[in-house]
Every structure is written in C-alpha cells, then in structure tokens.
C-alpha cells in the first residue's frame, strides 16, 4: 500500500509573477501525493524540489502563511477560481490540476504573495477601534447586553484575509471601494457600548471616498467569507445607520452618539 500512495501524483499549476511589474505566466508542477495534504504542504513539496513538469529547474514558488489553522488570513489565494485560505484547502477535496493564483485585487509582490496594506489603511480610515486612552482613569464602560455580544462576536472573527475584496466585483483597480471587511468592522465597533460613543465618526468615514455607497449588492462577499461573517447584513445595517446619520448631519442633532 505504501508504494501505491508513493506513485500517486498531484498536478498543480501556479500563476507566477517574478516581480511586482513583470508579466505573469502559468507554470506546471507535479508533486508526490501524501494522505491529508493541503495546498501549503503541496507548495512545500515544490519548494523542496523546484522542478516543473518539463523537467526544468525553476525558482521556488513564493507564498505567505502564518497560523496554518485559518485564523490569520495570511495564506489567502485563488484556488481553482475561488479565493480562500490555502491552509484549509485540502488536496483530496480539490479538482486537479489544482490552479493557484494570487488575489489580483491586491498588488502582487511575487507569485502568490500579495500586499494587503490597503485593508489595514481602510481599518485606520474607519477608526476600527475603541478609543479609551486619556489623561485619567475613565472607569468601567457601560455593560453590553449578552445577546448583542453574541452577534457582535461573529463580526469579530474577521481576519482581514482579503477574500471578500477579491470576490467583490466593485473592488478593483478602477474603483476606490474599500470592500466589505472594513465596513463590517464599523458595525462591530459601533455595536460596542464604549465604541458607540464615537459612532458618528466611523459612519462619516464610510460616507466618504471609497466607502459604503460603492456596494452594488452582488452579495459575493457573504458567500466567499471563510468565517461566515454576515457581511451583507452588516452592509445593510450600515446603510440604515448612514441614512439616519445623513439626516442628522444636514438638519442637525443632539443625538450624534446615542
């Protein structure tokens, strides 16, 4: 039985790019099958012996990874057309040849490595945090209702992996849309009892350039999200909040944060 598994091969095609500006190209590889392989262990096999199917020695494929348990988001790539994490993509469940491509919504660094800086810039732009720093002890914040905590917890599972941006037709080089992930974080931090004390600032941020209004409701994001975050519900909820905020901004209100 050992010899049988040793002779089994896995066909892998990688959409490679040597530098951020160079022309990408497909390169085919064949690696020995092992039980329970994932895409990352297959890529590690290629790295051990970087020879393509033509028998030509090539450079090892570059990719990002960190946690290997689908919580960090670093190893996201497009696998057989679908953006997802390569650590949780099992070889046994994929159609061969397995096609690996970088998430082209982001600038490609090399091969399957992309630069997700724009997502972190967006999180800064929408103030996706609870500001508690001050010159004196602010004491305890208000309590959060338990049932609210439960749905807000789901939103906190976002790992900024970029899959929803890759899936969204309105996030591309021709548009400034920040994408669903940072928007949903606004809903998370506005749901927090202390965070909501700055909710108008976050809402006004997503009412600016590249913000909420760019959503076209294709709803690919919620299908693609590996963490099952209700992104389209978040977007609709923010649509309602910004509708109210828009009227408050224009007509004036003493209730910007409550």
């Amino acid at each position, binding site marked *: 039985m050992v010899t049988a598994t040793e002779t089994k091969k896995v066909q892998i095609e990688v959409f490679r790019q040597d530098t951020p500006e160079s022309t990408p190209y497909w390169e085919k590889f064949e690696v020995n099958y092992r039980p329970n392989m994932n895409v990352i262990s297959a890529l590690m096999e290629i790295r051990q012996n970087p020879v393509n199917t033509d028998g030509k020695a090539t450079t090892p494929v570059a990719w990002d990874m960190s946690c290997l348990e689908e919580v960090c988001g670093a190893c996201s790539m497009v696998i057989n*057309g*679908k953006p997802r994490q390569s650590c949780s993509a099992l070889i046994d469940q994929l159609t061969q040849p397995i096609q690996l491509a970088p998430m082209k919504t982001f600038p490609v660094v090399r091969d399957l490595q992309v630069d997700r800086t724009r997502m972190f810039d967006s999180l800064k732009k929408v103030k996706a945090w609870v500001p508690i720093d001050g010159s004196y002890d602010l004491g305890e914040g208000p309590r959060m209702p338990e049932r609210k905590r439960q749905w807000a917890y789901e939103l906190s599972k976002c790992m900024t992996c970029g899959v929803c941006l890759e*899936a969204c*037709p*309105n996030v*591309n080089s*021709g*548009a*400034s849309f920040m994408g669903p992930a940072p928007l949903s974080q606004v809903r998370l931090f506005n749901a927090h009892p202390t965070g909501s004390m700055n909710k108008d600032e976050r809402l006004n941020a997503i*009412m*600016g*350039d*590249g*913000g*909420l*209004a*760019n*959503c*076209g*409701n*294709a*709803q*690919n994001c919620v*299908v*693609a999200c590996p963490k099952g975050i*209700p992104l*389209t*519900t978040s*977007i*609709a*909820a*923010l*649509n*309602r*909040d*910004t*509708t109210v905020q*828009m009227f408050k901004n224009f007509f004036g209100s003493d209730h910007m944060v409550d």
Partner: protein
Amino acid sequence: MSKDREFYLRRLHSLLGIIPVGLFLTQHLIINHFATKGAEAFNGATHFMESLPFLIFLEIFVIYLPLMFHAFYGIYIAFTAKNNPKNFGTLRNYLFILQRFTGIFLVVFIAWHVFETRFQVAIGAKEVNFNMMVDILSNPWMLGFYIVGVISATFHLANGIWSFLVSWGITQSPKSQQVATYVTLAIFLALSVVGVQALLAFV
C-alpha cells in the same frame, strides 16, 4: 467631481431611480395599456397627457433631468464593476450583472425612443397617436427592439427596487431581503405583462 460627494450621488441615483423615474415608467406603461382597448381609447389617453398644464416643466423636472442623471451616473457605475459570474454563479451576482447590462441597453433604447416619439414630434415631423406606434412596430425588428426595451426597463426597475430597499437600509435581515426578491419578481412579471400587452396591441 469630488469623490467625497460619492455617498450623496449614489443615494440620489438610487432615489431618483424609484422617484420619479420608476413611478413615471409605471404610469407610462399603464397609459400605454389603453392601446388594448383600441385606437380611440389610446388617442384619448395620450391627448389627456399632452394637455396637462405646464407639460414642458413636468417633462423636464419629473422625467428628463432625473432620468439623465440616473442614466449618466449609472453608466459610470456600470463601468466601474469587474464582473465575475464564472467564480460566483449566485442569483444575486447574475442580477447584479443583468442590472448593469439592462441599464446600458436602456440608455440606447430610451435615447432612440425619445428621438422617435418626442424629438421628431417636437420638430413637427410626426404626431403622437395610435397610428404612429402602428407604423413604428410594423417593422418586426423594431417590435423586437421595443419588447426587449420594455422588459429591460421593467427588470431594471424591479431589481432596482430591491437594491433601493437594501441601499437605504430598509431590508437588513437576509429573510427580508429574500421576501423582497419575491415581491420585486412579482412586480417585474406584472409590469412586463402590462407593457408587452400594450406593444402587441399595435401589431
């Protein structure tokens, strides 16, 4: 055009699609339906519409300006999308793409329709009546063009109502969005029947 005004322009685009453009389309298709009751009924209805006081202002502020903003900003929106139905073959993704395709087609169709039934009338080359539509639709290609145009318009409106409900934050839960899908489907079917029946009455 400042990108910071994007939010308001998008909201205006969404609102104008329903009020007044969507309301006007519904009213237009219903008036057209008089054609199924014969030439006299249709001519009476169009004559009533044409005899409305301040007609030119009504046309400019209720139809032309809102429609032109919706059309031109819509073209910009349609061309900023990068469609991906191959990787995400869900109903919503197809409707998203169809909304953009029907939008572009409607710009062409409505431009032609306005030229044929408004501009040519305004310069005195034609008169709006039952026979004018009989003339236009006697060409089978034109009949096809008009049927596709009417169905594109009813689809674009019905799906636009769905998007309006989400964009203004009315339907938030997946359940309410699903119900809105069924309701807007019914609106699409009903308006399509009304619109196409009227067209076929001229044939």
